């Protein structure tokens, strides 16, 4: 059994759909190899291994059943399919469900892949992480705590369904996350940075760790906001942009939410929903994109879509379920949050088009305002229908006369996402790759803070 390729495993069971009393069947077969170094102070924990998963969707009449198993053994897969059939029979018929997706020719031939992520020796990984940690500790005498992860990951995935989809792709990923806490006298300062790439970037770690600590030092000497200053422009540094906007944008751009009448933009196609400065592209074919693959997780080709162009809403994001419901083509936005989950409408690679300038240029444009850096807390608590969000920003600066004046004691910024999208003063051109986002910094006016 283990000698079989993932695609053969998928095909073997899909051919037997009828035997399981399923009208249609889809197998998502995944093999992941992961090496992960985690450090919490001096506690080093390294894990490495391979896991294999099969996620099954079956159609019985108008009902979809789902099940998963972390094994490629034949009897286990068979059992998972039987469970999925039972589940399909338990669920009420869905009148809007048409069928699983049909095959189409992919646009991208293959997702980005770096052999070195599979082959790099433990000695080399150890050497770079060790160098990075040493560079962090030697950067500042105030460094008290450091935590982080360095992760090397590769995936082979296969989607086979009984309507003829039979797709295979693989990809590699490199990610590192670091958090540093510094203490000077009694003042605590912290900083967090993330590095994500489809290619091996071990040699970038020392620089990442060093800058994290260096930037941590910049938050010493925190003061309160001027007491009469409660309203004004805010610069969100590039890495903060996804956590502010992504949830609300995705919720309202998902065709499923449009069809269920949950999206506030359900009647806004072709209309202005944001400032003319705002263009958002979802591109599953982007070169070296973190989420670039041949096909999405239900076998539909990844595509490039201009979703919002100069503020005008151009398209919603579809999986095959939502697309077939409108007799349209899926936009290839069905991804699975984990190999054992059902596909969901998700962003692939998101690009927010930049205008011009660096973060310093944005700062120079601000007479009196805030700069929000690195990360914010509470963004997951956004109400995506009302677009209302209130975030605590432990890493922020006060700006006056186009210059940073001083770091701020934890400040809370209240944002109405829909208003903010219309109040964009300037978008920089200082793009950062942050997981599946490729975004610049943004200057937004008219926000409230305390």
């Amino acid at each position, binding site marked *: 059994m*283990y000698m079989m390729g993932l695609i053969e495993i998928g095909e073997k069971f899909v051919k037997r759909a009828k035997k399981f009393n399923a009208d249609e069947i889809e197998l998502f077969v995944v093999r992941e190899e992961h*090496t992960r*170094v*985690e*450090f*919490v*102070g*001096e*506690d*080093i*924990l*390294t*894990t*490495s*291994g*391979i*896991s*294999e*998963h099969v996620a099954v969707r079956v159609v019985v009449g108008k009902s979809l*059943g*789902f*099940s*998963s*198993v*972390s*094994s*490629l*053994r034949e009897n*286990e897969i068979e*059992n*998972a399919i039987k*469970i999925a059939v*039972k*589940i399909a*029979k*338990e*669920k*009420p018929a869905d009148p809007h469900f048409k069928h699983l997706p049909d095959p189409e020719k992919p646009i991208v031939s293959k997702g980005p892949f770096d052999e070195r992520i599979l082959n790099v020796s*433990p*000695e080399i*990984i*150890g*050497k770079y*992480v*060790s160098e990075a*940690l040493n560079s962090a500790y030697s950067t500042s005498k105030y460094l008290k*705590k450091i935590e982080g*992860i360095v992760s090397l990951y590769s995936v082979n995935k296969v989607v086979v369904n009984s309507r003829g989809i039979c797709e295979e792709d693989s990809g590699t990923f490199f990610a590192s996350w670091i958090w540093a*806490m510094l203490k000077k006298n009694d003042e*605590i300062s912290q900083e967090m940075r993330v590095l994500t790439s489809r290619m091996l970037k071990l040699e970038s770690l020392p620089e990442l760790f060093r800058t994290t600590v260096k930037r941590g030092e910049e938050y010493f000497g925190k003061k309160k906001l001027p007491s009469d200053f409660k309203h004004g422009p805010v610069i969100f540094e590039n890495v903060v942009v996804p956590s502010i906007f992504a949830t609300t944008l995705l919720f309202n751009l998902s065709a499923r939410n449009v069809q269920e009448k949950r999206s506030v933009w359900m009647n806004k196609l072709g209309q202005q929903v944001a400032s003319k400065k705002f263009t958002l592209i979802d591109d599953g074919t982007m070169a070296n994109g973190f989420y670039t693959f041949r096909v999405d997780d239900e076998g539909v080709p990844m595509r490039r879509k201009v979703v919002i162009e100069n503020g005008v809403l151009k398209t919603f994001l579809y999986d095959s379920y939502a697309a077939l419901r409108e007799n349209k083509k899926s936009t290839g936005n069905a991804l699975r949050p984990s190999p*054992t989950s059902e596909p969901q409408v998700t962003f692939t690679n998101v690009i927010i088009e930049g205008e011009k300038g660096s973060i310093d240029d944005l700062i120079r444009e601000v007479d009196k305002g805030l700069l929000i850096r690195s990360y914010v807390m509470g963004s997951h608590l956004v109400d995506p229908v009302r677009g209302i969000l209130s975030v605590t920003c432990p890493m922020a600066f006060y700006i006056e006369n186009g210059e940073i004046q001083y770091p701020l004691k934890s400040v809370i910024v209240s944002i109405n996402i829909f208003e903010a999208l219309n109040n964009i003063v300037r978008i920089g051109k200082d793009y950062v790759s942050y997981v599946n986002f490729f975004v610049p910094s943004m200057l937004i006016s008219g926000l409230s803070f305390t």
Partner: protein
Amino acid sequence: MKSEREFIWDLMEYAIEYGQKLGAKFVEVRYEELYRTLVNLEKDRVVSVRNPIVRGLGVTVYLDGTKGYGYSCKLDKTGIEETVKHAIKAAKISSKLAKVKLEPAEYKPEKYVGFVPSLKKDPLYVEISEKVKMLKDAVRNTLKKNVLSLRTTYVDLRGVKMFLASDGLRRRWEPYLVGVSAYATVRKNGNVGSNAELKGASRGLELFDEFPIETIISKAISGAEEIAIAKRIRPGRYPLICNPEFAGVIAHESFGHLTEADSIWTKMSILHDKLGEQIGSEHATVIDSGDPINYGWYQPYDDEGIACKTVVILEKGVLKHFLTTRDTAPLLKMDITGNARAIDPFHPPIPRMRNTYFGAGDMSKEELFELIKGGVYVEGSLGGETEPTGIFTFGANRAYWVENGEIKYALKAVNVRAHILDFLKNIIGASKEIFVRGPVLGGCGKRGQAPLPVGLGGPYLAVREAIIGG
């Protein structure tokens, strides 16, 4: 012919042999099979049914004073060899970074001596359709006209855990859990209120004979009705009474994590240098145990095969012990407490809690309430956060104004905020009876491993003051 289980034991023995052949000084092998059922309803409509199965094997190797963890789902000889090689690779990476030597402590096998809860109606042998029907029927029997939304979830977990180490330590045990949660939004007198109620325990489905699902849902609905017409409280400092569940959330989230061995030896915890000190009042006792007490999580052995001990972390306010694992115990010069746990075979065991609860006091519930002339009583919690400094904020599921020991009226959306050390010092009484509950959907999250099933609870606790936010 060999049974499936014998086949697995053989593979595990081979892993140890192969690990030693590749130079490992000490090898641990863990096999896990986990079966979960999750049913979600919106009112009586089935939204989702899931039945994920996890099967896999993990290997820890100790090599030159460092350790590495490898895992795989491949249950054959080549799979084992690959897994061991992965573990060795991990140990080699760690050896380039580690400054502190890790060695597993000597361990003389002991037996788990705690309470073993019943498993009469084993969910493993009950059809999914029956579980769906059970939940649907309960919803239909309790649904009222004023309910705007009612989300219910049924969960069960079954499995097998097998463990073998190169010193001969060998364990096999089966985890089990069932639970139901209900989240209701209702309209009452033109106002809207929401509330959650849950019941989860290491038990068979007989749990629901004792605590009918109808009662859990009804309580969610009646609580939501109370909240709809509840009054707001002016934020400020007030005396506080916590029900066992709310007390348990604080015991686990705000205190327990600070006593896990990894956060102690790395000095990340604010308690790392406080052993033996009086950090709470004489009424503050906190225990962590594999014993589910009554309705908690049954954990006889940890994921290093150690019999789970009952640890009195805090005894009458004095910090007595930390939660250790086989390789952290020597670093802290403490006993091994059996706190090494992982969410599945694809993750390494790390210091984690089991059932964490405040210890019993000597008062009746009524006497305890009489300590409060005017204050707030909180029940349950959907969560909150604890800052590394020790300051925590937790939202209460339900809250009430108490006057002269009596509950007067319901309060809207109450948050409790305090520094954990102030909270412990301010405990002025605890009731005699302890109630510990298991998880339903959630559990504990730490270092990328979530949700880990844990129990939490305690007695009713009276606290001199805490910051109450609206």
